[in-house]
């Protein structure tokens, strides 16, 4: 199964009630400690910082495994522009505000609360995938922790 198979799948509650669409898949990346710098870090820090390319300062984490944490369920498919309903960015006005309004009600569901991922085979189904949630699932807030966290 690929992440792309989960995206845009319809989400149904334990009793079959439509809850929305999978707008994104949340992963937990293991951050590995770096003993030595990668291509971005210089040896002589002081001097290197002046002559280093600006892009070397961009946030990049050395990563290990990526675990599937859960699914983000929202009212509309295709994902939101720039994920504004999940981040705290407020500019440039009015774009984040409009996007947040459109995607209000997006929540996170843990992967453990997913009962089944099925492909529609019944008559009249368009073959789209459906995600059925387990009984007692919880709706968690969709926000991502801020970048500096």
């Amino acid at each position, binding site marked *: 199964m690929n992440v792309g198979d989960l995206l845009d799948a319809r989400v149904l509650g334990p009793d079959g009630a439509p809850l929305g669409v999978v707008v994104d898949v949340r992963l937990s990346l293991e951050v590995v400690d770096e003993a030595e710098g990668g291509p971005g870090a210089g040896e002589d820090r002081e001097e290197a910082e002046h002559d280093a*390319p600006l892009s070397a*300062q961009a946030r990049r984490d050395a990563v290990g495994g990526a675990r599937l944490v859960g699914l983000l369920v929202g009212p509309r498919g295709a994902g939101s522009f720039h994920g504004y309903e999940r981040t705290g960015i407020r500019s440039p006005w009015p774009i984040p505000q409009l996007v947040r309004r459109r995607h209000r009600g997006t929540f996170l569901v843990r992967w453990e609360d997913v009962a089944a991922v099925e492909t529609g085979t019944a008559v009249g189904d368009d073959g789209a995938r459906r995600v059925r949630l387990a009984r007692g699932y919880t709706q968690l807030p969709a926000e991502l922790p801020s970048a500096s966290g």
Partner: protein
Amino acid sequence: MKKLLAAALGILTAVGGFVDIGDLVTNAVVGSRFGMSLAWVVVLGVVGIVLFASMAGRVAAVSGRATFEIVRERLGPRAAGANLLASFAINLLTLTAEVGGIALALHLASSVEPRLWIPVAALAVWLVLWRVKFQVMENVAGLMGLLLVGFAIALFQLGPDWGELLRQAVPPSPPGAEHPASYWYYAVALFGAAMTPYEVFFFSSGAVEERWTAKDLGTNRVNVLLGFPLGGLLSLSIAACAAVVLLPAGIEVSSLSQVVLPVAQAGGVLLLAVVILGIVAATFGAALETALSSGYTLAQYLGWSWGKFRRPARAARFHLTMIVALLLAVGILMTSVDPVAVTEMSVVFSAVALPLTYVPILVVANDPEYMGEHVNGRVVNALGTVYLVIVVVAAVAAIPLMIATGAGS
């Protein structure tokens, strides 16, 4: 001293590189029909391109991602694909106009028919992209483009009524004979001519390829801040020459020879030769940048290896794209389509295409995940939002105005 020379070179190259065939034709047309009453659009466009180019440069330098990579990453495959098609097509239109412009200028200089110059011009552009050290060519084209200052010289030699020119500009007073719809159509065209998208693709791709340091970013900011407004002055002098010579005589601009008519009248053959050389250099430089932009947009959308500093074997599909784009441009021009008409279309469509790249850049410039602490400050953001409105309004109004005015006729 060496630093000062390097800084001067950067600024002068930006000035000479600002004007392309779109600016030449559109400013001359506007001057011949509306006098200086659209001068405010040039000012608006210059401020806009300074803002846009410096934002795109900062985004590229800090995040390490060039403009079309950002479009691909932020819009998702379908929307970004549509964006790519539109941007690539309009870029191709501009490339066609620039190559046509080189041929027209060479035709002015010799009496050889433009159609014969077209393949020569395209081949020359390709050879430079293939073999020549790019920085050298960019500096040569940029500095020689400064020869367009001949328009300003011609303007002074014509001894115009400065008061009259000023009166036409502030407050904008279009001649009564022109319909308001035409006025606004040409406002959009002039705006698109000043804020050409290829400039931004080119600028941001360079920032990534050259791995700009903080110092580089500062240098380029100065180049843009000083160079582009001075380039805008060149644009205004082209319009003013047309306003002084062509407008009173009711001469319409339908070919490059009318664009340079005021220069010939003011300064004779010598000044004309200087200006024609400047036109060849400016359009050649613009053709280089536009061809590279066609490669950048496609390669960045698809994630290919790209770069003007990479040897062609290391960026094979990128170079193939540019070759195909040049061949398409030549193909279009060889159908005997009027390059001036192509130019007029390309600037209007540039205005239509502007939001496609402006919005993603503005959005990412505010994203700490990409920019860290270098996100837009409040002033830049305020200006950015104002221009967001302007750019969207211009894009939406362009096609209806084009239809309503029959492309300005």
